[in-house]
Structure formats: structure tokens, C-alpha cells
């Protein structure tokens, strides 16, 4: 998921300077997990902005599981708020940059609503684990090396992103020269390869990374989901789990 934190209120107010009628939109995906776009965060933001003279004309709260970056779902909520969006001086997106841009693109191109749109959050990249603590696990490099590195990504776990590590900076207690709180990723890879009997992979030379696969912006095309079928599937699963 996309890790994120909220920008300082002063920075948000700077963007909204001279704009009174504001629409707030959250996200039921990653931003809910990081409390940066859930209904409670939207209410807190509305209160803070109101105190600073802003009129909140709509709060678009997406339920858990509805990602604002996934337009087949989030666009339903945009359509429900068409009039508010048309009346707004600005839209404040409480999501990551993906969400902000997906919504901006939909408003511009599908709804013909061209408005100033701002992101309230700073995205910090792909992170995993939780529920409280998260760590960056994947770079999204487009050329995954995990099969060769015991399931530990050296590009994100090693500060230098070395393919043939470690460097000379492994401390005597197995930490990283860059951050003494962090384990040396390549020591972790070495030990795990040893445990699973694949140490020969450590001795192999991993060839230079093909960064052409990370040329931006990357685009993907897939067969669209049958959304209703997926929602039914989710409902049945939750029921069978007694939720």
C-alpha cells in the first residue's frame, strides 16, 4: 500500500489561500489505514479549515475498501457530488498523489469540471506490515529480484540498493552504516539463503539493473474487473468469516 502522512496545516492553508468554498475528498484505501483520508480525518480537516475561514461545502467520504485512485468505484461518489464540485473554489484531496491525479483526470476529462485541486498528503512509497508500524518493502522497479535474494529486496532494504552487496559498511552488530537502527539487508539475505540451502545464489553475480523498465510514467492495460461480481465475492467471504 501507499504509505503517507498529512502535510502541515500551514502548507495546506497556503495552497487554499484566496479560495473559500472547499470540497474535501478522502480515500477508503491506504489513506484510511494511515488516518490521512478516513472519515474522521476528513472531519478533523473540515474543523481546522473552518476555523481558518473556509466553508466546507462537501465531505466526500469513501467507505473502507473504496480506493479513490480506482475510478470505477470512486467515480460513483464524484457523480453524486457533481453540484458541490461545480460550486467549489478548490478541491482538497486527502489521499496519495495517485488518488489526487486519478480524480483530477476524471473531473477534467469525464465530468468537465476543471478546478484547482490540491493534495493534503505526502506519499512515502510502497510500505507493508502494520497495523501500527510499516516499512518500505518494494520499489516498484519493474524488474523484481526477490527470487534471487531470498525474498528480501536489496533495492529497498539496503540503503545503497546494491545488487551484489553488502558494502563494507556492515557494523559488527549486523547493522547498516547509514542507519544503526537498521539491519544490514545483505546480511539478512546471506543468512536466509544459508538457512534455505541456497548460498550458491549469494556467490552469483547479479547483472546491472534494467532501469528502462522503470521509465516514467509506466502504463498498464488489463481486462477490467467485473466489479459487481467482486463485491459479491467480498460479501460472501465476509459472511462466511462471520463478519
Amino acid at each position, binding site marked *: 500500500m501507499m504509505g503517507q502522512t498529512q502535510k502541515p496545516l500551514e502548507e495546506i492553508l497556503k495552497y487554499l489561500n484566496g479560495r473559500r468554498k472547499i470540497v474535501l475528498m478522502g480515500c477508503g484505501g491506504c489513506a484510511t489505514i494511515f488516518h490521512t483520508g478516513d472519515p474522521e480525518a476528513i472531519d478533523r480537516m473540515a474543523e481546522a479549515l473552518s476555523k481558518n475561514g473556509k466553508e466546507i461545502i462537501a465531505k466526500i467520504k469513501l467507505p473502507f475498501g473504496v480506493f479513490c485512485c480506482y475510478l470505477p468505484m470512486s467515480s460513483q461518489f464524484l457523480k453524486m457530488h457533481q453540484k458541490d464540485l461545480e460550486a467549489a473554489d478548490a478541491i482538497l484531496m486527502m489521499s496519495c498523489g495517485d488518488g489526487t491525479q486519478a480524480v483530477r483526470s476524471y473531473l477534467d476529462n469525464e465530468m468537465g469540471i476543471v478546478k484547482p485541486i490540491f493534495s493534503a498528503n505526502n506519499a512515502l512509497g510502497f510500505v507493508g506490515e502494520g497495523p501500527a508500524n510499516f516499512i518500505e518493502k518494494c520499489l516498484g522497479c519493474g524488474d523484481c529480484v526477490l527470487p534471487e535474494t531470498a525474498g528480501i529486496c536489496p533495492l529497498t532494504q539496503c*540503503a*545503497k*540498493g*546494491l*545488487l*551484489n*552487496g*553488502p*558494502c*563494507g*559498511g*556492515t*557494523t*559488527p*552488530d*549486523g547493522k547498516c*552504516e*547509514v542507519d544503526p537502527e537498521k539491519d544490514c539487508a*545483505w*546480511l539478512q539475505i*546471506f543468512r536466509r539463503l544459508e538457512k534455505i540451502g541456497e*548460498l550458491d545464489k*549469494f*556467490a*552469483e*553475480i547479479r*547483472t*546491472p*539493473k534494467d*532501469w528502462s523498465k522503470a521509465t516514467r510514467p509506466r502504463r498498464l492495460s488489463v481486462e477490467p474487473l467485473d466489479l459487481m461480481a467482486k463485491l459479491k465475492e467480498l460479501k460472501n467471504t465476509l459472511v462466511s468469516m462471520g463478519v
Partner: protein
Amino acid sequence: MVEERIFSNLMRELKAGKFVFTGELEPGKEGSIETTIEAARKLLGQVTACNVTDNPQSFGCVNSLAAAFMVQKETGMECICQLRCSDKNRLALLSDVLAAGLLGIKNILAITGDYVSLGDTPDVKPVYDLDSTLLTRMIRMIVDEGKDFRGNEIRNPPKLHVGVAANPGSEFLDMEVYKLKRKVKAGAEFVQTQVVFLPEVVDRFFAKVKEVGGIDIPILIGIFPAKSYAEAKFFHEQVSGVIVPEDYMAKLKETKEIKDKEKRKERIDQINIEYFTGFLEHLKSTPAAGCHIMAVGYPEIIPELRKVVA
């Protein structure tokens, strides 16, 4: 008859089985090179070749290729040009390797490089497109095959050797030696190690090398005669895997009490000669091919130490 693949004096002496000394030069953060050239002059005849550092500890300094070229031109001292992967991608590193050939540089030490946050510009974007293993591989492909990683042809490829670093004092010696074997597989032709103070560290390292089937390229063990207690303390506390012996540190610490600058220096020289004479005698009994003396700003100590293996 197969032509012997020797391009430098360093490699010639190593192949001839001589016990080789190398030194170290550290060009500064300045638009001049006189100090480095002066230091190189003092090392002439004392070492076979000198490393020229590349942005050491991530402090931006004079380009190592330019400095090495000037040193070779002005003094005749053969250089081992350090190239680190922290600051340049594979295009820039390839350019440097070709430039090294043009500038008459015959040896490169391929290193990954300290992380940029350790230096004087911690907010810089680090590169690490390659690591020391891949830089080694790339250099051998350029020199031996006249090709880059993509197979693009390089006309008139440079003739030079590539060396790598290793850390005998690593707490994780298994991994260190595996890594070194990987560098040898990539084409490394010689090794210069991190600083070692304890003879038992050298022994433990060579025992591990033997355990994994040996390493068939020359290994020069790094030493660091400290000019002051502060320098020794820095290595002990800040450099991974380097243990400076307590008695050596204690003797250097005592010199802080000597008020007369000349007398203090004499005593420090004496401490280093006593300590490293014993160390070098031991080194001669190991498979080490030589000794890399990192006595930056302390060239006068080298002739004394060399007497041991004269």
C-alpha cells in the same frame, strides 16, 4: 605463445612474487594538486604504486583521474585510481574507465563507496547504479572484450588492471569471503584490504579464504600507522571491523603529554615502528602478497617500515 597480460608495474611485481608495498594519496577539496604531488614525491622508491582516492568518505574532492594523471606526469609515481559507484552511473563510470586509459592510468580500484550521508553534502542524491562487483565486471569487459554491458563495441579499449577491496576484520567473515570470491569471479585482479592492526585478524582471514577453496589473486593487507591518538581512536570507533589494540592506543594517548612537538612526533614514529615492524614480520609469514600502507600525510614512516622486508 600467449602474451602475458601485464599492463602496470604493480601487476608486474605482484606476478613476479615480490612483496609489494602500495601507498595512498588523498587529493583535497581544493583547486590545486601541489600537496598531493609533494606527498607522491616522498613516496617515490618506497612504494610500487599509490592509490588516489575518489571523494573519500563522501567528501567532494578533486577528481581522482585528474589527480592521478597529474601525479603520474609530475612524479612518475604509478597510480591506482579509485573509482566509487556512489556518485556515477554506468555511463559516467564507463567514461571514466576510457578516460583512465587515455590518461595513462594502469590500475583502478573498484569500490562501492561510503554512503553520501557520511560526507559533507549529506543531502545529495546517491547513485549506486553499479556496485563494486559490477564495476569490476564492467572494467574487465571493456579491457578484455572491448564491450560494454550491452555488448556495444568499444574501439581501442584501454589496457589497465582492476582491483577490489575486502575487510579481513569483518564480524561476518563467511559472508565477506563469499563476497570476495564473487568479486574474483567478476574479474578482480588484486585485493587491497581495509586496515588491519591485529595479526590474528590476518590469520583468521587467510584461514577462511583457505576454507572456501582459496583466492587466486594477490591480496595486499592494509595498515594504518596513526599520526596521533585521535586518528587511531577514529578508526577504532568509526570504521567497521577495525579493532585498534589497546596497548597501541594507550601509548599514543600518552604522547599527548609531550609538550615539545618534535619530541612528540619522534615518540609517535617510534610507537609505529615498534608496532608495525612486528606486524609486518608476521605478515611476511602469511599468504599476503604485500601491504597497502594508508599513511596519508605521514610518508616518512614508510622507509622505516620497509626495512623489515628489505
